[in-house]
């Protein structure tokens, strides 16, 4: 069964450093998403992406964040200057159709630890 993959599984970085989290969505899916989950808390929407542009973003997704689909398979989340509060699990998800009404398949996540 096709699945969303994410690398790395765990990223440790120093505060102020840039990090890039990588995702490979399911190959025929058209909509891509990033979520974060701070330890013990709920899943929070960051951004959705379709047709090479951002569709929606939350208030969490400020100027420190950016997303990119650099080629036909990868979908990346960049945090320019990490803060301690960015420590969380970051999940990528993809869906075949738009988020409203379609199943989103989640990747296994990248645990980001900012020291």
């Amino acid at each position: 069964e096709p699945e969303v993959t994410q690398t790395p599984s765990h990223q440790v970085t120093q505060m102020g450093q840039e990090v890039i989290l990588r995702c490979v969505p399911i190959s025929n899916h058209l909509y891509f998403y990033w979520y974060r989950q701070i330890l013990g808390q709920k899943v929070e929407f960051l951004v959705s992406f379709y047709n090479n542009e951002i569709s929606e973003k939350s208030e969490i997704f400020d100027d420190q964040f950016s997303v990119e689909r650099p080629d036909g398979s990868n979908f990346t989340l960049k945090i320019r200057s990490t803060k301690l509060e960015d420590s969380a699990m970051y999940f990528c998800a993809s869906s075949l159709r738009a988020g409203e009404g379609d199943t989103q398949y989640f990747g296994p996540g990248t645990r980001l630890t900012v020291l």
Partner: protein
Amino acid sequence: GQQVMQIPQYQHVQEGEDFTTYCNSSTTLSNIQWYKQRPGGHPVFLIQLVKSGEVKKQKRLTFQFGEAKKNSSLHITATQTTDVGTYFCAAHAGKSTFGDGTTLTVKP
């Protein structure tokens, strides 16, 4: 903005007992989805409800969507230890909004 509230936050049951989690929205929803997240795992899609008053079953799990499409519930009959995890409801309408989740623990 849209808010999705979920109760209870935690539920501890004896194996074999039933379990229910409730999800309430501040706005009318076009659909609602339920996910399960095992400890240390990622959210896994369980089901989607679209129609007013809809009821769907998956083995021991029963999902309901309220008549006003503002609330939903997930009921598990005769829980098993494999049911442990956090159950989230989610509304996807442009932005995705997840409920806080209900964490279920089952004592064998």
